[in-house]
């Protein structure tokens, strides 16, 4: 591994910043990362501002390996705190410290099966990257994207372009079907033809999609969203309870994931004290109680 030392991290130049609906996107000139990146993987960015120290992880949305700017990678984000606010202020030629590509990628189907891609909010970003790859492999791609409101649906035009059919849901009914993604995928499973589901979005959505897929005995690969500190497997912050070797283990979303088998994630145990485990912190509190002033 020593030969790869140093190759995972670099200072890269911003090629473009743009808005995509309610979201933000940054494209970096990063030929080496572009060469190695695969759908489902992420990069982590060093950010400044507001005393923030931890890197921020982002799924890779698009990769260009050729073209006038050599290789580029593009990420999508929402402004949720000081780190992402700082990122949204970057302009062309600024430089950012990037580590990546990191994590496990979406596995490609081994057979000619129909692929259903289910995205929530900007969780659609890595799925659109995957859709390109699936199409290149001559696989049928259907896409379902959901969000709270129309402006938080990520890149519906691109989803239509990259799929045989694209369905949209909004919780306020402002666009597409009024409801949630799970309201429409059930029917699609019944219609048949789907061999694998790929999903990315908020954890409750991934849990719901995985349960529906499991009921229909359809393979499901999810890219999970867990808070990370290091992004490279050392800090054990981003763990997800996962069935492995007949047992449940806390696996790291940044190394064993972010793409995990949705049927093996123990969704009900996320955020709960594992049964039979010994709390080693200074409090053995299993639940996280509300505080009263």
């Amino acid at each position, binding site marked *: 591994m020593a030969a790869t030392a140093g190759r995972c991290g670099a200072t890269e130049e911003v090629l473009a910043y743009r808005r995509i609906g309610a979201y933000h996107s940054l494209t970096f000139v990063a030929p080496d990362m572009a060469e190695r990146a695969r759908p489902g993987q992420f990069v982590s960015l060093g950010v400044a501002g507001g005393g923030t120290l931890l890197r921020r992880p982002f799924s890779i949305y698009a990769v260009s390996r050729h073209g006038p700017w050599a290789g580029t990678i593009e990420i999508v984000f929402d402004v949720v705190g000081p780190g992402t606010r700082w990122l949204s202020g970057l302009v062309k030629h600024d430089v950012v410290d990037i580590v990546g590509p990191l994590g496990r990628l979406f596995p490609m189907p081994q057979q000619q099966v129909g692929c259903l891609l289910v995205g929530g909010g900007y969780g659609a970003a890595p799925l659109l990257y995957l859709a390109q790859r699936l199409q290149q492999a001559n696989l049928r791609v259907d896409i379902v994207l959901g969000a709270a409101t129309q402006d938080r649906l990520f890149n519906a035009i691109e989803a239509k372009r990259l799929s045989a059919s694209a369905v949209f849901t909004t919780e306020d009914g402002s666009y597409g079907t009024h409801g949630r993604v799970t309201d429409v995928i059930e029917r699609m499973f019944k219609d048949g033809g789907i061999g694998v589901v790929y999903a990315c979005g908020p954890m409750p959505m991934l849990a719901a999609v995985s349960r529906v897929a499991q009921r229909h005995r359809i393979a499901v690969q999810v890219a999970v969203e867990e808070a990370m500190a290091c992004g490279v497997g050392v800090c054990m912050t981003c763990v997800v309870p996962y069935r492995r070797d007949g047992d449940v283990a806390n696996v790291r979303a940044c190394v064993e994931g972010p793409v995990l088998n949705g049927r093996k994630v123990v969704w009900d145990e996320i955020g709960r004290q594992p049964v039979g485990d010994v709390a080693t912190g200074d409090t053995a509190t299993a639940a*996280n109680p509300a*505080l009263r002033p």
Partner: protein
Amino acid sequence: MTAVDPRAGASRLRSDQVDLRVDLGPLRLDNPIVTASGCFASGREIERFFDIARLGAVVVKSLTLEPRGGLPTPRMAETASGMLNAIGLQNPGVEQWLATELPWLQALGVPVVVSIAGKTVAEYRMLAEYLRGQPGVVAIEANISCPNVDDRNVVFACRADATREVIQQVTRVATVPVFAKLTPDVTDIAGIAEAAVAAGATGVSLINTLLGMAIDVETRRPKLAAVTGGLSGPAIKPVAVRAVHQVHQALPDVPIIGMGGVRTVTDVAELMLAGAKCGGRRHRDVRQPAGRHRAARGAAALVR
């Protein structure tokens, strides 16, 4: 390479390198940069970023007798110039680690300091027994910032008598130097360090995280599932410098491994000027995994 002789430092030094060797009592390291326990995992994760064999030593994540799954999520909360964590010592257990992880580190030829954590004094002794005569293991770091289940969960390192008891049991069976890792959450850290040394510790590692807590005012819930957690990062570096200084003043001959919020060359130099023999990096691995060796050279230049 199978065994690492603690005294074999010179053989790893090339002619074009500066002599950065440090002596921690009977233990000699090639350079004063070590990893801080808890930020290194098995080492394989970090090996992607730089050659870990160039470190003075690696301090591995604390091992327990039984495998531990750790605490529920959320396990981390970012705070101003730092972070809180409550991981719960997730680790594969000492037996599994010896079988699968130690051989890999041995093959790299890097000196290994094994951090151990127990719930009782007896557990610490048993862990030290597992490590007897293990090739490549050059020291034990007793992480005694753990609750003692035999004493109402009072943290060992918060009491001089409990500290003495653990270190006595560990040094009785250990075949390598023992360092006591202390918490700064005490009234008199020099007094605790004194107890550890009197019980046979070669030196002390300063500091562990400070116990902290953060609340999400929107949800009115603690940000960590475990409610409280350890504060690390640059926010605690002045506390580390102070603790190193106090212990060094009280016990000038005792080797100190300094750590706490170390990110840069200057940070390592600061800890060394306060009295530490070498510096461990915790936060740095989380934020910036590469570039540690640069720190080693710079620190030596500044201190000399």
